């Protein structure tokens, strides 16, 4: 059975408690959660708003990356989500929850999933700054 209980690309608000509950397992001693939130600044410039755009294959790639990393660790379950569309400052853009019997596995798997998703997922981030300029992140 897949260790990835949920892998979602969604324009809805991401509720971390829901994902933590998805990976909770009465046998799990450790749950590690990463939440990537929309920041109010980037490289010193105040950000006004932020929009993510996804390729149609993004959700499938999100699941694939999570499954590949999950297979390398002694973990129970992974649940993860990436939000797209306009995201208000301070809200969650990307969430990864990992449960395991032991904390070292949960920490390592969670961090590696975050790292790999950032490299592999075909999603783009458009920032509008307070001074009216805008930017496609990683592009300019």
């Amino acid at each position: 059975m897949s260790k990835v209980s949920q892998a979602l690309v969604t324009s809805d608000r991401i509720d971390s408690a829901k994902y933590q509950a998805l990976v909770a397992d009465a046998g799990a001693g450790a749950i590690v959660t990463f939440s990537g939130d929309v920041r109010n600044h980037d490289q010193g410039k105040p950000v006004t708003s932020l929009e993510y755009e996804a390729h149609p294959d993004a959700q499938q790639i999100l699941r694939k990356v999570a499954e590949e990393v999950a297979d390398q660790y002694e973990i129970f379950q992974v649940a993860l989500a990436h939000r797209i569309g306009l995201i208000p400052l301070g809200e969650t853009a990307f969430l990864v929850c990992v449960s395991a019997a032991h904390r070292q596995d949960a920490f390592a798997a969670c961090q590696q999933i975050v790292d790999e998703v950032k490299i592999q997922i075909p999603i783009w981030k458009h920032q509008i700054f307070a001074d009216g300029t805008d930017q496609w992140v990683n592009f300019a």
Partner: protein
Amino acid sequence: MVTVRFFAAAKAATKTNEVKISANTVEQVLALTIEKFPDLAAVLPKCSYLLNGIACSDLSTKLSPEDLLDILPPFAGG
């Protein structure tokens, strides 16, 4: 006609999601899209390509009329 889809900065440069182009190779598609959308010239050098959903780095790859070519600027998810 090959279908070409633009994303993110490439879509912003062309102001369109998708075009149909008659071409025999990826290279030809790119040359013709730059002709049609001059602003794309600054964007393409940073892009990668998906041909029918699979990464394509060989620009001399031959195309069939029903092919789908995606133009992907550098990712910034997560």
